[in-house]
C-alpha cells in the first residue's frame, strides 16, 4: 500500500553533522524550552516581559485551552501510533478515553486511591480493553475493522452511561481534586507543568518504540501485510501489542481529562470526540508523531483563533453584520470544515508532509 500519506523510512546510518549545525540545533532546542516555560505565564497574566497584551495579540487563547490541547495530544499520538504506524484504522478512541475515565472514577473516587495510581490503573485497564477491541482485527481488515471499532465504541459508552447512572448523581461522574503526593494540581499553571513532561515522555516512548525492531516490523505490517508475514513477522501478536500500547495511553489521557474537568458525562465521549482525533492525525500527517502534535494544536486552537480574528461585529451593518453577530459560531464551523477539506485535497501528507516539502526545498544539496 504505497501511499504518500505515510512517512518514508528514515535512513538509519548517518554521519554526525558538523559542529556549527549542532550548535544551531542546541540553540533551537534551548529557545523552544524557554518559550514553553514562559508561555503559561504569558497566558495567565496576559502580558509578556511587562507589556500588557490584548486578547487578539494572544490569539484569543487561554491556559486551560493549552492544557486541554496537551491532553488531546496524548490521544492524537496514540491514535497515530495505531493508525499511522501500525496501519489499524480505529474510530474507537473515545471509548478508550471513557475507559480511562471510568477506571479513574472507580479507583479514584470510589476506592480513594491517589491520583498517580488512578492514572496507572487507567492505563492498565485501557491496555486490556484495547486488546479485546483489537481481536476483530485478527479476522477482518480495512473498512470492516473500522466498523467493528464503531461497535466497540457504542458498547463501551453504554457501559459508561450505566455506570454513571447507577453509582453517581445524574449530572455526571465526579472526581476528587488531584494531587501528586502533597502537591495539589489546582491551578492551570500547575496542570501545565505537569502535562508538559507527560506529553514529552509519551512522545519519546512512542518514538523509541518505533525505532526498535518491533516498531519497524509494525510499519512493515502496515505497508504490506502479506510480505511482512512472509518475512517472519507475527502479525497477530504485533497488532494486539500496538492496540494495547495505544489504548493504554489513550486511557490514561481519558483519566487525565476526567480529573482536569473534575466532572464528566457520557456525552463527552461521543462519536464526534473520536472523530476529532482522526481529524488531528490527518491534519498532522499519518505516521508522523510530530505531526500529531501539530494536528492536535491546530484542531484545538484554530476555532478560537478564527473566532478571535473575526471582529466582534456589533456595529457591522447589513448581511455581513448579521453573519458575524447572529451566526458567528456557524461561520467559524464552516470556515473550519472548509479548512480541513482544503488541507485534505492540497496537502495529502498533512502538516508533516508540508514540512518535508519545505525542508526539501530549503536544502536541495542534502541527500535524503
Amino acid at each position, binding site marked *: 500500500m504505497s501511499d504518500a500519506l505515510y512517512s518514508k523510512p528514515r535512513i538509519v546510518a548517518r554521519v554526525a553533522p558538523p559542529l556549527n549545525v549542532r550548535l544551531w540545533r542546541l540553540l533551537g532546542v534551548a529557545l523552544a524550552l524557554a518559550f514553553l516555560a514562559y508561555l503559561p505565564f504569558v497566558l*495567565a*497574566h*496576559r502580558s509578556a516581559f511587562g507589556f500588557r497584551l490584548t*486578547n487578539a495579540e*494572544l490569539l*484569543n*487563547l*487561554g*491556559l*486551560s*485551552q493549552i492544557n*486541554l490541547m496537551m491532553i488531546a495530544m496524548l490521544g492524537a499520538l496514540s491514535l497515530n501510533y495505531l493508525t499511522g504506524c501500525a496501519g489499524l484504522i480505529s474510530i474507537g478512541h473515545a471509548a478508550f478515553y471513557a475507559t480511562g475515565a471510568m477506571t479513574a472514577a472507580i479507583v479514584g473516587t470510589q476506592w480513594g486511591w491517589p491520583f498517580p495510581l488512578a492514572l496507572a490503573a487507567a492505563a492498565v485497564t485501557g491496555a486490556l480493553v484495547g486488546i479485546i477491541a483489537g481481536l476483530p482485527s485478527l479476522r477482518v481488515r480495512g473498512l470492516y475493522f473500522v466498523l467493528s471499532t464503531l461497535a466497540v465504541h457504542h458498547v463501551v459508552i453504554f457501559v459508561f452511561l450505566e455506570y454513571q*447512572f447507577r453509582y453517581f*448523581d*445524574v*449530572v*455526571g461522574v*465526579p472526581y476528587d481534586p488531584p494531587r501528586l503526593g502533597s502537591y495539589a494540581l489546582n491551578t*492551570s499553571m500547575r496542570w501545565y507543568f505537569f502535562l508538559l513532561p507527560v506529553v514529552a515522555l509519551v512522545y519519546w516512548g512512542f518514538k523509541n518504540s518505533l525505532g526498535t525492531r518491533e516498531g519497524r516490523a509494525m510499519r512493515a505490517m502496515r505497508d504490506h501485510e502479506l510480505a511482512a508475514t512472509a518475512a517472519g513477522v507475527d502479525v497477530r501478536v504485533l497488532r494486539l501489542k500496538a492496540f494495547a500500547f495505544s489504548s493504554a495511553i489513550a486511557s490514561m489521557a481519558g483519566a487525565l*481529562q476526567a480529573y482536569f*474537568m*473534575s*466532572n*464528566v*458525562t457520557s*456525552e*463527552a465521549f461521543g462519536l464526534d470526540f473520536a472523530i476529532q482525533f482522526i481529524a488531528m492525525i490527518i491534519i498532522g500527517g499519518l505516521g508522523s508523531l510530530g505531526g500529531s502534535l501539530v494536528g492536535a494544536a491546530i484542531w484545538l486552537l484554530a476555532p*478560537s483563533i478564527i473566532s478571535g480574528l473575526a471582529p*466582534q461585529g*456589533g456595529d457591522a451593518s447589513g448581511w455581513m453584520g448579521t453573519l458575524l*453577530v*447572529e451566526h*458567528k*459560531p*456557524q461561520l*467559524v*464551523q464552516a470556515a473550519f470544515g472548509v479548512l480541513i477539506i482544503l488541507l485534505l485535497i492540497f496537502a495529502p501528507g498533512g502538516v508533516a508532509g508540508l514540512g518535508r516539502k519545505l525542508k526539501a526545498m530549503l536544502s536541495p544539496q542534502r541527500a535524503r
Partner: protein
Amino acid sequence: MSEWVSSTSRPRATVAAFALALAAALGLSGAPASAQEVPEDGVYKDHIDWGILMDLSGPTSSSQGPWVTGFQDYMRKVNEAGGISGRKVNVLAEDNRFNAAADKIAFEKLSNQTPVIAISGMGTSASQVALAPTIKSGPLPVVGTYTPTKALSEPVSPMVYNGFCGYKQMAQAGVGFYVDQLKLKAPKVMTVAIETAGGRDYANFVAESAAKYGGTASAVTMKVTAVDVTPQVQEIMAQKPDFITIYGVENTSILTMKALAQYGLNIPAFGITYLGTPSVYQALGPQAGGNYTFISCFTPGGSDQSPGNVEMSAYADKVGHTTLKPNINYVAGWVTGQMAAEALAKTGAEASRAKLVETLAPGFTVDSKGLSAPIVYTKDDHTGPQILKMFGYDYGANKFKAFGEYGDYGKYTK
C-alpha cells in the same frame, strides 16, 4: 490575575474618586459619571462587557440560540435608549457547542481573557457542576442561568442567580394543575422522557408530586434520536394513565403526541417549558396538538396584551424577529436581559463585579410586566422564576392561550 487588581486599580480608583468629586463640585450631576474603568471586570468608560455562555451551534442550539437572541435584543433596546449610567452594554456570547471542555475554556476566556462583569446562560448542566466550585469562590457572578442545577444552586451563593424555572417546579405545577383540572383523587401519571440525566431527575420530581396527591407515577424512556415510538405508546396503553408529561427535545413531543393520535388515545399531555414552541404545535396540527399543553414560567410573545408582552413584541417586530417572539426561549432571554440591565442600573456608575454582587446579594425583584410572574430573589432564595402557568395553543386564532393567571398557580410551587 490578582496582581493586576492590586497594582493598577488603586491609582485608578484615586483618579476616579477625584474626577467624581470634581464633577460633583462643578454641579455636573447630569453628566455621565462613568469615568471609572475596571478593565479586568469588563467595565470601560463607554461600555460594559456582559458575558453569555450557551450552545449556539451544537445539538441544543435550536432552543439556546433564541434565548441568546432574546437577551441580545433586550440589550440592544437598552443601548438604543442611551445605555445604563452612560455606558452601552456589550454582549459577548461564547459558544460551547454543548461540550463541557469548550465551556471550561469559554469560562476562562470570560473570566480574564476578555473579562466581563457577569455571565448569563450556562446552558450545559455538566459544565455547571464542573465549574461550580470555581464560580462559588468568585469573583465572576452568574446572573440568570438557563437551566438550574443542584451543584450550582445549593447551598445558596451570592454569586449565582437562577433565571429559569426548575424541573421540580415544572413537575409540581403541571401535576397540580391537571389534578385540579381533571378533579382526580388518586392520579395516575406517566412520564415520557429521553434517557438522560435530566430526564431521570424530572421523572423523580413527577413521582414526588403525584405521591403528594395520593397517586402513582411511572416512566417510559426513548432515545433522543428516535424515529418511531410504538413501543412507548404500547406501554402507555398498558398503563392507562390519567395524564402524561413529556420531557425531552421537540422531537419527543412531536412523536409522542402524533403516536397518541394515531392510536386514538385521548390522554391529555403536558410538556416541560422548553417544549412549548410554535414549531412543535405547527408540526402536530390541530388533531394531535389539541391534547397538548405545556407548563411555563414565561409567557409566549403576542399571546396576551400585558405591557411587558406588548413592549417585547413591538421591539421584536422592529428588529425582524417576529417569528422568534412566540418562542418561550426568546422570552426567557429577554426577561433575563431585563434582569441583567436592572442589576447594572441598580449597581450604578461605579460598577465592578464586587459591587454588582453587593447590590444583588441582599435580594431584588424583577417585574417583567406580564411576561412572567414577578421574579423574587431574597438573601436565602435564588431559585428565580418559581411560578408557572399552563399554556395551550389555539389553532383557530393561531396563537398561544393561557389557562388562568400566574396568581392562580402560586399554591402549587409555594
